[in-house]
């Protein structure tokens, strides 16, 4: 008999990033009892690392902006695979969600007339990102955290959820352990919100932390939920490439928003060479026009450096492969050049991009006000994830909700920068509201001890294998190598088939993973617990990418380099079959209502 402590709630929120905290605040406000569980300390979730800003059509800087433009931009960026209902709600509700943060104490940078300042970002037609220098995520998570701790929620920090508990088809709570002591914990709940973030640790070069092992996707999948759009992994065009040890760490798009340009080793601004048809109308023809856009000239169009991330990442990849890369295998990102145009450029750069300045100075010994940075693509964001209802955020499992990066739909085939932080707020709020409603309408679910028992036994296997078993870190590294090489920015049928073979082999090794020591804050054990989730998510990504025989958004297939209009009618869904095998299938996209179609036509 396993010993565990039990903490019952009406609503259990798994994850304390922007989405989880926003959901918990909303649910607690309705008077239900709310618990929050997170793997790290409070305030350290990924959201803290977000830099550039939060997208909302506040129209503070350009009064031509409104929800319809934001909606159309989001759909265009997602290549029309988005859940249009989510894109609509997101565009309409983001402004209120951002203003609400201000009422809770957030201090965004200001316009001259004292309102929230907004900056340019890729794929957004007008300056739309509310920001605080380049530490917007910190401002956001701290605001939610400081507001949240007074809202009645209980927080279990440094606890990992291992599995969801079910009562028939419905969710009944969660089971896991606390990382500090290694004790088992149970959280019975009437409704559960998954807000566990992304999957970036499945790849070698990534901007993501150890937390991003796809736990939420895997927990939901095992509970019977469907995963959507798993082939769409965003590779951010600008990660650091040198020194090796910081490879992958993000360089915010805000650098380009503030006028930073990309050059190859010939000094050429190669982004002018290849502008996709979908964006020809909106993109500057000359360097001069691009600069005027940066300076706020409403008649100028945006520079090609601000095209969508999927495209910019591929262009960089092409330059490097063609031998026009930098010494360490990237391209140059230059913000120092703006001194040609503005006085006090170094001061300006330090004020607008303080943490980039600091990051390069400390980690690479480079002064970005004087020299160009070397950058290259890095695994950044998961567009795919748990399939949810657009309004309520409930998955196909009754009582199980999902919000934030772990949920899918809003971003389609490619996310626009800044649309994640707003996603967290809009859909975190909705998930919290609907989860509380669900909890009020449904009584407590029955707890099946055997489920907890099974999860506990599985989690202790690595100690039985002991230090002589497979090294958990090594399995993780090997998976990261496979995914990076075989299912990365450029994909091919035979490589992805090899990846499936590699995943299988790693699964066999993972079954023998071993660890010494005890359960108290044992990082090796924690890493071992993440492996199954990473393998599951990697398999879903690979199978979905194999099935989609076209190139669109973040998915680029060398063997099918063109966009296929037929594929534009489908999403791909992964779910567990009756015998535990993974089923991957096409699912037709629901037709868009006439009024939304009209908006898209109007904005073309």
């Amino acid at each position, binding site marked *: 008999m396993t010993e565990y402590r039990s903490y019952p709630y009406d609503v259990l929120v798994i994850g304390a990033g922007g989405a989880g905290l926003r959901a918990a605040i909303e649910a607690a406000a309705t008077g239900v009892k709310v618990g929050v569980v997170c793997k*790290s*300390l*409070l*305030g*350290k979730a*990924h959201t*803290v*690392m977000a830099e550039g800003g939060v997208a909302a059509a506040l129209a503070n800087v350009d009064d031509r902006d409104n929800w319809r433009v934001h909606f159309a931009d989001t759909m265009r960026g997602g290549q029309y695979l988005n859940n249009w209902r989510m894109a609509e709600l997101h565009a309409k509700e983001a402004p209120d969600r951002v*203003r609400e943060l*201000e*009422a*809770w*104490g957030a*201090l965004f*940078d*200001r316009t001259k*007339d*004292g*309102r929230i*300042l907004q900056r340019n970002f890729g794929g957004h037609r007008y300056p739309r990102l509310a920001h*605080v*220098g380049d*530490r917007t995520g*910190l401002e956001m998570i701290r605001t939610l955290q*400081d*507001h949240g*701790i*007074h809202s009645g929620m209980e927080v279990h*920090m440094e606890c990992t959820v291992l599995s969801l508990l079910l009562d028939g088809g419905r969710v009944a709570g969660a089971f896991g352990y606390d990382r*500090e002591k290694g004790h088992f914990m149970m959280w019975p709940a009437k409704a559960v919100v998954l807000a566990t973030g992304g999957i970036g640790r499945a790849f070698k070069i990534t901007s993501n*932390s150890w*937390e991003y092992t796809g736990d939420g996707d895997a927990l939901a999948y095992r509970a019977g939920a469907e995963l959507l759009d798993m082939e769409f992994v965003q590779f951010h065009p600008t990660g650091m490439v*040198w*020194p*090796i*040890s*910081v490879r992958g*760490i*993000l360089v915010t798009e805000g650098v380009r928003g503030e006028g930073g340009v990309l050059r190859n080793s010939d000094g050429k601004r190669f982004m002018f060479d290849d502008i996709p048809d979908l964006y020809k109308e909106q993109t500057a023809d000359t360097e001069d026009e691009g600069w005027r856009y940066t300076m706020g000239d409403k008649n100028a169009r945006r520079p090609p450096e601000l095209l969508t991330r999927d495209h910019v990442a591929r262009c960089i990849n092409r330059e490097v492969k063609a031998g026009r890369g930098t010494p360490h295998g990237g391209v140059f990102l230059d913000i120092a050049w703006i001194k040609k145009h503005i006085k006090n450029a170094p001061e300006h750069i330090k004020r607008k991009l303080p*943490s980039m300045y*600091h*990051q390069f100075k*400390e*980690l*690479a010994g480079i002064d970005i006000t004087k020299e160009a940075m070397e950058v290259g693509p890095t695994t950044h964001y998961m567009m795919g994830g748990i399939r949810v209802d657009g309004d309520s955020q409930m998955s196909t499992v009754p009582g199980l909700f999902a919000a934030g990066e772990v949920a899918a739909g809003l971003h389609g085939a490619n996310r626009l920068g800044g649309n994640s932080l707003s996603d967290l707020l809009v859909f975190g709020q909705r998930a919290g509201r609907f989860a509380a409603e669900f909890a009020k309408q449904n009584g407590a679910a029955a707890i099946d001890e055997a489920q907890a028992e099974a999860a506990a036994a599985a989690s202790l296997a690595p100690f039985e294998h002991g*230090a002589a078993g497979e*090294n958990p*870190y090594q399995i993780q*590294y090997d998976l990261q190598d496979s995914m990076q090489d075989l299912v990365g920015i450029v994909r091919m049928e035979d490589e992805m088939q090899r990846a499936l073979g590699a995943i299988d082999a790693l699964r066999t090794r993972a079954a023998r993973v071993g*660890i*010494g*020591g*005890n359960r*108290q*804050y*044992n*990082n*090796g*054990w924690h*890493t071992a617990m993440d492996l199954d989730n990473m393998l599951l998510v990697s398999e879903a990504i690979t199978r979905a990418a194999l099935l989609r025989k076209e190139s669109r958004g973040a998915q680029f297939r060398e063997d099918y380099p063109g966009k296929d209009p037929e594929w534009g009618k489908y999403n791909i869904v992964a779910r567990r079959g009756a015998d535990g095998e993974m089923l991957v299938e096409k699912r037709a996209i629901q037709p868009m209502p006439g009024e939304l179609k009209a908006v898209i036509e109007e904005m073309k």
Partner: protein
Amino acid sequence: MADRAMFRIWRGDASGGKHQDYTTPVDEGMVVLDAVHRIQARQAPDMAVRWNCKAGKCGSCSAEINGVPKLMCMTRLSDLNLDMPVILEPMHAFPSIRDLVTDVSWNFRVKKTIKKFRPRAPDAPDGTWRMQQADVERVQEFRKCIECFLCQDVCHVLREHHKHDEFIGPRFLVYAAALEMHPLDVEDRVTDLKDKHSIGYCNITTCCRQVCPEFITITENAIIPLKERVVDRYFDPLKQLLNIL
């Protein structure tokens, strides 16, 4: 740079522990956290260490490197003398959990005791507020805090005198300053600062400011102005006279 380095890492838990030596290959550009990860992956899989962002943004990887409180992810090996073992220890001002990880939960409890943000009613026509950049900048400095608690670690009131039950420490004086100087906030925390949070214990040694990885001017910009507010209210003879009248 040398191609190997020795790290003398404190291993143990609340019941005690000792330093253990690990030699590991090192490369150009590596930071201390990279070396710890390498040791963890190859030699000590169960070693406990906290980290998240690896870029100085989350404040998780605080430790004492050769006795100096620092972020492990922002300390480059090239800035250390690798001819000698690099000594890595957990923060001393907090109870040990294991190896480099300490129990910092006290900080989260302290924060809850500080009165929360209370804005004045919105006064712009659109139901929000207007604030000038110049007015928010002062507070933005404090809001850069990544809650690494290195300042708490170094403050003698906590580290040597263990006044955790009375004194909130520099991190939360910065937090209180951010609230008190927030252009919209109308709450009054001055009495609490004096009585409940014991700001008087701080004797402006500036140790906290010197370790802050975000370069927040903790003492001059946050603590001293708060102390002035307390003095103004409680120790200014003229004001006291006025209060009596």
